[in-house]
């Protein structure tokens, strides 16, 4: 497949890895932000190619992991209603709420359906006028334009039986929260390339300047990540702290203007709690007042309680890159993908599950 296969080629990977080895003179800690990047790193065994001086920590770039528990509970409650067809990306189905996941609701007879695109959910609404179709609008800025379009089209067509449960999160506030944390060890970031196709990367320039960290916009294939690590290491070795664009075949500095226009028509910035981290100001999206009629929480009021904490799960530390999953005493012992204690063990993008599935040696 073009623009995929050539970025997975062994010789080129070895070349980039040896260049990283040539340039590195001391230990550096880098964070890749996006769960999809974590997935590639672990799946391709990329860490095997890196010199020991490079430590990669995995950031909170897994919307599955950071969606607040209260919203998972709300999703489960809404999905249990007999009149509702509850649509979600596959990623969200296995995440347990305080007592149930969407998969559990499906097993109990709830009409829960996996969709590939929010437009599929909208189509279901058109074809099932007697049911209420609710779509779980989870994701970073990458997914917001698509979700905005679904709502915008619903409004235009006057579709009454469609609503979305909004759980969007924004990346730059999360990066700032991590950098602002007193124990932060991260010295450079690999920014989420597909988020940046929408948002561009000008938002990172003040962050790089304020905290003096290199930020490299990185793609998702093994060569992209190796190239981005190389660029970050060169900056670190040279004492620079700039924003660079490794993923230039897809990302432009100004991002996708048309997509952002639609996003800002439909959504506005809001407060958002991140599971495992807590409230990060202005780090979420909600529907604008003129589209509030499509808000599933308004249409199906649920009592959203605050949920009790677990003493053992260190998800917050893992999500911020302050601990590796295998440093958790419960890892692979009491906390496994079948019996997760925290969100990063549930999704295969979560740092804990990724380590468990791909990195564990008996």
């Amino acid at each position, binding site marked *: *497949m073009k623009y*995929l296969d050539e970025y*997975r*080629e*062994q010789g080129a*990977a*070895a070349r980039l890895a040896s260049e990283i080895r040539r340039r590195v003179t001391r230990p550096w800690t880098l964070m890749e932000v996006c769960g999809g990047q974590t997935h590639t790193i*672990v*799946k391709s*065994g*990329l*860490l*095997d*190619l890196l010199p020991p001086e490079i430590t990669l920590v995995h950031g909170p770039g897994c919307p*599955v992991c950071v969606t607040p*528990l209260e919203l998972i509970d709300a999703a489960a409650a809404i999905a249990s209603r007999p009149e509702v067809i509850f649509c979600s*990306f*596959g*990623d969200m189905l*296995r*995440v347990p709420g*305080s*007592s*149930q*996941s969407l*998969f*559990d609701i499906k*097993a109990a007879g709830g009409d829960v359906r*996996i*969709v*590939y695109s929010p437009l599929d959910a909208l189509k279901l609404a058109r074809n099932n006028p007697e049911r209420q179709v609710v779509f779980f609008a989870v*994701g970073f800025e990458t997914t917001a334009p698509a979700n905005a379009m679904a709502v915008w089209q619903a409004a235009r067509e006057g579709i009454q039986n469609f609503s979305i449960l909004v759980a969007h999160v924004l990346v730059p506030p999360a990066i700032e929260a991590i950098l602002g944390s*007193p124990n932060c060890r991260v010295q450079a970031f690999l920014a989420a390339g597909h988020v940046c196709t929408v948002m561009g990367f000008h938002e990172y320039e003040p962050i790089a300047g304020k905290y003096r960290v290199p930020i490299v916009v990185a793609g998702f294939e*093994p060569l992209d990540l190796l190239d981005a690590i190389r660029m970050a290491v060169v900056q670190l070795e040279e004492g620079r702290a700039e924003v660079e664009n490794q993923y230039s075949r897809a990302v432009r500095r100004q991002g996708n203007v048309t997509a952002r226009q639609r996003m800002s028509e439909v959504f506005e910035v809001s407060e958002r709690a991140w599971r*495992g*981290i*807590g409230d*990060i100001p202005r780090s979420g999206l909600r529907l604008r007042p003129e589209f509030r009629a499509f808000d599933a929480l308004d249409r199906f009021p649920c009592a959203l309680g605050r949920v009790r*904490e*677990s003493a053992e*799960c*260190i*998800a*917050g*530390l893992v999500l*911020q890159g302050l601990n590796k999953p295998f440093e958790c005493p419960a890892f692979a012992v009491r906390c*496994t993908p*079948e019996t*997760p*204690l*925290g969100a990063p063990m*549930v*999704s*295969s*993008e979560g740092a804990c599950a990724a380590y468990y*599935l*791909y990195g*564990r*040696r*008996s």
Partner: protein
Amino acid sequence: MREIQFTCPAPQNSQDRILLAHGGGGKLTQQLIDRIFLPAFANAALEARHDGAVVEAAGARLAMTTDSYVVQPLFFPGGDIGELAVYGTVNDLAMCGARPLYLTIAFILEEGLPVETLRRVAASAAGAAQSAEVTLVAGDTKVVDKGKGDGLFITTAGVGLVESPGAVGPASVQPGDAVLVSGDLGAHGVAILSVREGLEFDSPILSDAAPLWAPVRALLDAGIEVHCLRDLTRGGLASALNEIAGSRQVAIRIVESSIPVSEPVRGACEILGLDPLYVANEGRFAAFIPAAQADRALHILRTIPVSAGAARIGEVAEAPAGIVTLRSRIGGSRVVDMLSGEQLPRIC
């Protein structure tokens, strides 16, 4: 500086109910077997944990197996539940090194199912039996209330005559064995998923459902020492290899660039975020053959149409015991674990 709370609410996982994932062929299915079925039905044949059982009667070695088919949709590109029900059981027998001979077939029908649907499925099953050279000798039919049966379920049982001289199963696997697959992976699972979840593709991917006795017979006839065979059904190649590695306590090492996957299946998996290693097949098997005979075995497999795409994908080693590892395209390495449940499409 505002302090961030480093805590996470503990999700609880209630497992007092059967989940869909228990049927996925992965870890939760294994748990059901370990915790419910083996303790209830303990005997040597079951402990072998192979898909079929080899038993002795009147001096002959027979293989027996049973399987249920609950696939939705009933009809999918390249096949239907009738064919699956026959091929699945035929293949479980073939994986024991046994010539499949006789099948029984039992139907559970939902009240309200169109009779025409049943006619089509029965015709498919009959056609499949003919092409697999087996006879359907007995059957049963039950009807359940509307809303309980999902349309149509089929259970088949089969018996065959073991033709391999040695025992074919995980216990015969040796460190140093070569691991072969009989053809490209993932077609069946993608065909089902694409129709079931409304994730349609314009050029439909066809299921690979097919009977597998012919390539097995060819290997046995040529005198190849077949240590183990495993058809790759739910849970895909990854689950099958994990089961064998776990059962025999050996290590299995596979090479990503050797694993055959057709371009369209690759494209579909990329879009849906699926890993072909975990996608179901219905006409593919893995074979464990002594390394010295692997090339000859490959050559033989490639002369049979259903295994024309056979490839050597890895080897068995002593350690780390029970673990399957993969060398990736870029030369890194990772563990190929068993999934806990069904693999789901992802967008992240």
